[in-house]
């Protein structure tokens, strides 16, 4: 008991010093930016702060090395594999969230979409009383149900935000509550417990299967990331998304169909949530309405840590990936260190807060994206 406590204290110190380091980095960057006499130096200091991917990677490396002193197994292949597999649903959901954040919106309904998609698809596919139990079409129909839920919620959110000009925060908060409630209610018709199990084997294989040793879910997430990156950086829709996020009026005056672009962002976000739900449901092998409840905070937190701006107009898929990686590694490290759940939450909370501080600072010195 005492040993464990002593251990905890050491770890706590380690954690605190990591956080201190974060604070120091932020402050020195800021100070450097303010004090630097010449324009050039000032620009360079701001550059470090505004191109936060380098900053995130640096912090991550310091953190991993710091944790490795106490728990060397963080550097093992097994841990790496665990982290990568664990972050896949979050990666996909955060990529979707990035699209909405770029147009200066926010999508709080992603976890509800994941839960609703999960139970509706499971109710179709399950071997015990599913609508298409045993049918060859069960899995395609289930996948269709996931995406259908995502599409409907996304279109609804988008129309409320774009056509009716409602703040996306309140719209998606309302859909989140409604859809999450609906998912629980829907489950009661299909299962005595809180989840729907006995999903067909081909569907479960998405979660555990591999192709040439690479997990299918990983390949799926990589494909989604590549497509999303392509859309944001190379296509008309991508440019329009950034334009709407930076200055909606100027975008409209320049012929950008603002409403359609905003609706597209919400649909993409909800479809990504549905895709994340496919990966997650197949891994836990049951459909459950509370599928992604633990991700609620992480989705927006990860995006902000990576450097996607809450003010709109700024964010990339790479930033989203970095944010998720950071948050998942942080989580894993704290678990390995044996910290209690509330301690983990507190640390995550402070890291997200720091990221938000940096976002505000970046907004102040912002250059082009």
């Amino acid at each position, binding site marked *: 008991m005492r040993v464990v406590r002593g251990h905890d204290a050491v770890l706590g110190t380690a954690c605190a010093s990591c956080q201190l380091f974060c604070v120091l980095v932020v402050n020195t960057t800021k100070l450097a930016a303010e004090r630097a*006499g*010449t*324009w050039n130096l000032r620009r360079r200091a701001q550059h470090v702060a505004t191109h936060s991917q380098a900053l995130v990677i640096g912090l991550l490396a310091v953190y991993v090395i710091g944790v490795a002193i106490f728990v060397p197994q963080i550097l093992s292949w097994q841990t790496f594999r665990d982290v990568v597999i664990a972050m896949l649903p979050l990666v996909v959901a955060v990529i979707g969230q990035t699209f909405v954040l770029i147009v200066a919106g926010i999508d709080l309904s992603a976890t509800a979409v994941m839960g609703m998609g999960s139970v509706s698809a499971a109710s179709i596919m399950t071997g015990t009383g599913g609508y298409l139990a045993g049918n060859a079409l069960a899995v395609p129909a289930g996948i269709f149900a996931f995406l259908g839920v995502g599409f409907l919620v996304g279109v609804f959110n988008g129309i409320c935000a774009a056509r009716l000009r409602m703040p996306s925060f309140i719209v998606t908060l309302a859909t989140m509550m409604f859809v999450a409630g609906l998912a629980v209610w829907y489950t009661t018709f299909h299962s005595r417990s809180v989840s729907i199990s006995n999903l067909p084997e081909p569907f479960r294989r998405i979660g555990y299967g591999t192709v040439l040793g690479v997990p299918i879910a990983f390949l799926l997430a990589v494909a989604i990331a590549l497509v999303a990156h*392509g859309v944001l950086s*190379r*296509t*008309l*829709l991508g*440019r*329009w998304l*950034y*334009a709407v996020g*930076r*200055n909606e*009026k*100027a*975008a*409209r*005056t*320049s*012929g*950008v*169909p603002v409403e359609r672009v905003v609706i597209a962002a919400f649909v993409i976000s909800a479809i990504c949530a549905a895709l994340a739900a496919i990966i997650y449901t197949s891994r836990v092998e049951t459909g459950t309405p509370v599928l992604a409840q633990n991700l609620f905070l992480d989705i927006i937190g990860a995006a902000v840590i990576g450097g996607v701006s809450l003010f709109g*107009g700024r964010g990339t898929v790479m930033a989203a990936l970095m944010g998720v990686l950071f948050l998942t590694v942080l989580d894993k490290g704290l678990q390995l260190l044996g910290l209690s759940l509330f301690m983990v939450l507190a640390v995550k909370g402070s890291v997200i807060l720091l990221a938000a501080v940096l976002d505000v600072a970046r907004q102040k010195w*912002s*250059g*082009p*994206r």
Partner: protein
Amino acid sequence: METETAITKSQPEPGDDLQAPLLSLHDVTKSFFGVTVLHGVSFDVYPREVLCLVGENGSGKSTTMNILGGVHIRDAGEIVLAGADYKPRGPRDAENAGIAFIQQELNIFPNLSVEENLFMGRFPQAGKRLPIISFRRLRERARELLAAVDLNVPPQASVSALSPGERQLVEIAKALSLDAKIIIFDEPTTSLTSRESERLFALIERLRSQTIGIIYISHLLADVMRLADRIVVLRDGHVVRRGPKAAMTVGELVNAMVGRSIETLFPNRSRRGATGTTVLEVQGVSQPGIVRNISFSVAEGEIVGVAGLMGSGRTELARILFGLDPFEQGHIAVAGQPLTRPEPSACISAGMAFLTEDRRHEGLMMEGSVAANLELAALPDYASSPIGIIDDRRLHQRMAAMNEQLQIKCHNLGATPVKTLSGGNQQKVVIGKWLLRRPKLFILDEPTRGIDVGAKQEVNQAIAQLADQGTAVLMISSELEELMGMCDRILVLNRGELGGIIERSAFDSEAILLAAMWKGIGT
């Protein structure tokens, strides 16, 4: 040609009598990050006079005023205010010392009432120590102040319900209540209608008769020539010209400001008048309360101006044509095709381009790079169907080629944020954005507003060039001189109606003003 060397020392001037100056600046110097922006600026302000300060953007006017207003602290030099050394450490010090700064962006609380704004921070109290506001005394004193600036609104009215001109009067009333010795006006007329400007000028005349010194900063030389007793010209942080108005002409002022003589602000166009086919056809366009029964057309290669007072429907007409605002009756056709769906995107695909008067909020993404702004309107032309992949190489080649012609001054098109550019260069970015689309019709709303004389010339040059290449141009300006210099025809709007169409051969500023101010005159 250099007009003259910089004047560095303040000398007594003829016609100043023996009166002591209210405010004198001696060799005021200021630098930012190693760049000197004020090189020993000296001038005096006397009571009962209007001193106009003119100069291009970046000439040091704002820095000088910010030093007076306590926003910046001078590096060297002396300032004497009413016989005492003046060294403000903040805007509060300046206010207490009697310097009031009426700014472009009015610092006023729109959600509060007029009286609350007037006495913000020093409400009259009921009783000596009681922290309770005496609204009776507040109202009385507010009434007196509003009467002094001739503003007829109830003191309890919300400021958000006032027009920009009325808000400005509230600010002036506030300055008076603070016993201001010096009132600084920085571009006060930019957001005012001409009627409101007239009212402001009348008020300034009245203030002049009190023992107040007034510093007036403006780009509008007509206003300067009208108001000034003396004029100080700044260029690159030096005082290059200083003297009584009577000794200066507008031409001399412009020369002193730009440091070279401008042949003409308006380019000479080889080809004039409607040469090609009709591009824009407007027939009987009406929107209740905005415009009524407007009909005209613009042909290829023609520059048509729109004159009219503020509130005459000039800007509103442009916004209707570009699909930003709705209209109830009438027809609009571009290149023979009727516009059925009034939406900017539809207008743009029909070949229209629109330069808005509100560059910061509607024209540009200030945070974005120059390239991100330039490409915005033309993007669909460079996107493959059906996925819409952008051909960045072709796009950047085209942007670079266009910039050869436009000469936007920036380090790197792809990296320099637009907000770091000067007003003139920002305006060129807006123009460039539309040039990439090779528009058939370009609607320009106040293309030279808020930019300095040199940039004005360049912008006008670009517009003329565009027309020479066959684009139909519809140009709105509140500077009549500019319309007369640039246009082939001028439409005059009067309270939402077409007051007349005047051909170039018949251009006459009086006739145009008359058509703008009286109904039914003109052709």
